[in-house]
């Protein structure tokens, strides 16, 4: 598994000097892969959720392998991976749901 480039992430640094503080949640098998249920992270304001996921994917290649089956949420609503993040946002990466 190739390491994920931080290109998208770094290019945003030059666009914004503001830092966003974001809370991140992991569920199901993602929680097992990452080894924690939640994290707090700082990233350039306006970074897309995709860049945040790439950050974790770079540290946990197994996580990146599940990307195609995941859905992202911001502030408890399903959102596109291009959704920009701002301070106070709550993000989660959600595996296929299996309630019921």
């Amino acid at each position, binding site marked *: 598994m190739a390491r994920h480039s931080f290109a998208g992430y770094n290019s945003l640094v030059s666009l914004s000097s503001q830092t966003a503080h974001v809370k991140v949640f992991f569920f199901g098998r993602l929680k097992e892969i990452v080894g924690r249920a939640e994290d707090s992270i700082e990233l350039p304001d306006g970074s897309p959720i995709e860049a945040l996921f790439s950050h974790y994917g770079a540290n946990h290649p197994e996580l990146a392998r599940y990307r195609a089956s995941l859905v992202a949420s911001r502030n408890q609503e*399903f959102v596109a991976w*291009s959704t920009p993040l701002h301070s106070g946002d709550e993000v989660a990466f959600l595996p296929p749901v299996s*309630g019921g």
Partner: protein
Amino acid sequence: MAKDLQPDLLALVRDPIDPVALVEHVRAAEDGAVVTFDGCVRNHSHGRHTLYLDYEAYESMALGKIREIAEQIHEKFPIHLVAIAHRLGRLEIGETSVFIAVSSAHRPAAFDACRFAIDTLKRTVPIWKKEYFEDGAVWADGEIPPAPLETRAAKPAS
């Protein structure tokens, strides 16, 4: 939204679900039907013998999505009230994992709304179950919830 003074009952619970209490919650003098769905823990999955299940949820979002389902069925069907309870944690074979009760003046609306509710719950509510077998455990195959379309700027990670 429900226009009734008595609200719908929507809950995530860790203790056993009491179906009778949910039915009693939704039935009233003006109702001619209560339709229920009892989702229970099966003793097999993909040909393997299941020992027990463990459910976890993104609880605040899950409750929000269950509320959306209740709002949707009030908009779509002429029903009276709905009760939806989903249990979390370890569940033994035969126990109820989810229970839905819908009341209405006439049965078609209650049948349709109950079916819509469980089908939508299984596609959109962030709850996950892990299946435990004699020789290991796996996260159950699930459904990918519908998400907003990506904009042109979005790039897949791999």
